[in-house]
């Protein structure tokens, strides 16, 4: 069974009296454990598609099946529940909470689920921070970390609740190529180790090199869908 199945997905934005179509009928299936990159020129609809898959926005038409359940009819509260338990996000600008340490930023995501004891939480967060290579920086605040380190914290935050899917919107856009490679390696490792599904949106050829599936979007439609072995 596919983790995500999109059928005839459309999204139209209303700008005053003008309707701006962002997605014009997307059909796509993503299996569990895939490492997929969505690419395309600016304004092609990559981020909109990612937002739809990430339950952050609602479609104008079409259907989204996530893990066997249609999410079209869910209200905002129910969508927040889906995000809370099943999805992880990595953002271009990291979006860490500046007043929290690396440890607390990662812990933040797991505290929302609220099914672990304090000790379990601590062990889990520390072990994941070790895994992303930040074990000794757990108590540093974001302003004491480099861009790459921040993105590692963000990845740990996305993975801590063991989500079915991690969505990464231009995760390397603010990083130099060496750090980008480190971050991508890390995500690939996590993908292989935990079988977590990753979907990226990017312009970055380096990211595309890592992907096992490349989906190109042009003018709100899929123009190319290529799998690599």
């Amino acid at each position, binding site marked *: 069974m596919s983790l995500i199945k999109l059928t005839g997905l459309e999204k139209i934005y209303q700008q005053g009296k003008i309707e701006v179509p962002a997605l014009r009928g997307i059909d796509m299936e993503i299996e569990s454990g895939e490492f997929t990159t969505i690419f395309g020129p600016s304004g092609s609809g990559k981020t909109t598609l990612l*937002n739809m898959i990430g339950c*952050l926005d609602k479609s104008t038409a079409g259907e989204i099946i996530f893990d066997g359940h249609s999410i079209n009819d869910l209200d*905002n509260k129910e969508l927040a529940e889906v*995000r*809370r338990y099943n999805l992880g996000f990595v*953002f271009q600008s990291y979006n860490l909470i500046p007043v929290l340490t690396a440890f607390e930023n990662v812990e933040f995501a797991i505290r929302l689920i609220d099914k672990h004891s304090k000790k379990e939480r601590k062990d889990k967060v520390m072990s994941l921070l070790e895994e992303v290579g930040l074990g000794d920086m757990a108590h540093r605040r974001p302003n004491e970390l480099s861009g790459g380190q921040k993105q590692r914290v963000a990845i740990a*935050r996305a993975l801590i609740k063991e989500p079915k899917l991690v969505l990464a919107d231009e995760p390397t856009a603010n990083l130099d190529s060496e750090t980008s490679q480190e971050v991508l390696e890390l995500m690939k490792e996590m993908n292989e180790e935990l079988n977590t599904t990753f979907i990226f949106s990017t312009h970055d050829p380096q990211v595309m090199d890592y992907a096992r599936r490349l989906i190109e979007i042009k003018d709100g439609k899929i123009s190319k869908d290529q799998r690599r072995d």
Partner: protein
Amino acid sequence: MKFLISIAFKNMFRNKLRTVVSILAIAFAVMVIVFTRGLIDGMIEDTYSLYIHYDTGHIKIIDQEYEQKEKLLSLNYTVNGLENKSLSEMESDLSDLDGIEMVVPRLKFGAAVSTEEELVQMLAWGVDGKKELKFTNIGRELSRGRMVESGKREVVMGTALLDKINKTVGEKVTMVYTTAFSSFQGATFEIVGEIKSNLPLLNEQVVFMPIDTARQLLYLNDESTELLLVTADRDQVNNYLPAVRNYLDQNGGERYLAQSWRSGNTFIQLLEVSEKIYNFIYLFLVLLSSIVVINTLVMIVKERTQEIGMMSALGLKSREILELFLLEGSAMAVIGSFLGALGGGLINYYLSGVGFDYSAAFEDIDVLMNPIIYPTFKIEHMIFAFVIGVVVTTLTAIIPARRAAKLEPTEALREI
């Protein structure tokens, strides 16, 4: 919820100066409330007790006609007993009524003392010295000598009045007055006491003499111009008043007026209304200060829009985002209100000892008011101001917090 509280608290330190300004605005408003309440309370308490002691008692019995002529110090409308009862019997019956602890008679009339330069006019009060000492605070105000004693031809007067007539305690003074039969007469008294009071009435106007001496001089046998009833509890006076009125009606005393201290005096009524008005002013004051908090939170929401988007993406619900910002506003409200209540309390504690000199403002105003006001220090004022500060500020913080909660995650994430 616990971790939201922890984040909200940590968020307060992101822009320390802004947080401090917001907290100070609340603290200032709350401090002003504590101080104003203490000041007004002190003023009202003091005024109430002055009016009760020197004007109204808890219940005042006078002749209905006397109410109109009181200013003229008329001796034609006295309280002189009932149909079949003398004034002494009436006093005794009244003091037996439930809740009445004491009956204080006063006989007020005009008198004057002639010095070499001028004729000094004064208010002569025939009083029962022992009862006055028990009922009023005159004992504390006596700086020299003693209070007047029954059966003696003696007076007690204020320092300013003594200065005006160039006399001192131990000397004799001759006073002129008009009797109940409108004859002009004079008598000599020994000055046995001096009152040193901030109150102009006691300092400059009143001369106390024994009531029996006054009656004898004025040819008013067993009569008073007023009877002041002292009850067990001044705030329960309306419970005691019906029995007094009933007693007067049943004994042919329909011509007498029995008034509660609250209803008998327009100044007291004015103070009571102003007390209520002040409560609205306090609310307005906190609302003003909470604008600073609203402004701070609006700026915070704007600055943290992307962060709100991230939180939303992580699965935080709108209600939790609202709580997060509300907690931040509330934390400022709690700290500011606590500091303000503490500051206001300390100011009142200090001023309740040294007082606040208003004498210049009261120079030409004819109200019974102590020119030095002592604000009251009461924990309840601090609690009242703290609660009003926290509640009003938290409620107003809902406005920006709702704005944060309503942000669409995709729009919030797009914000740079």
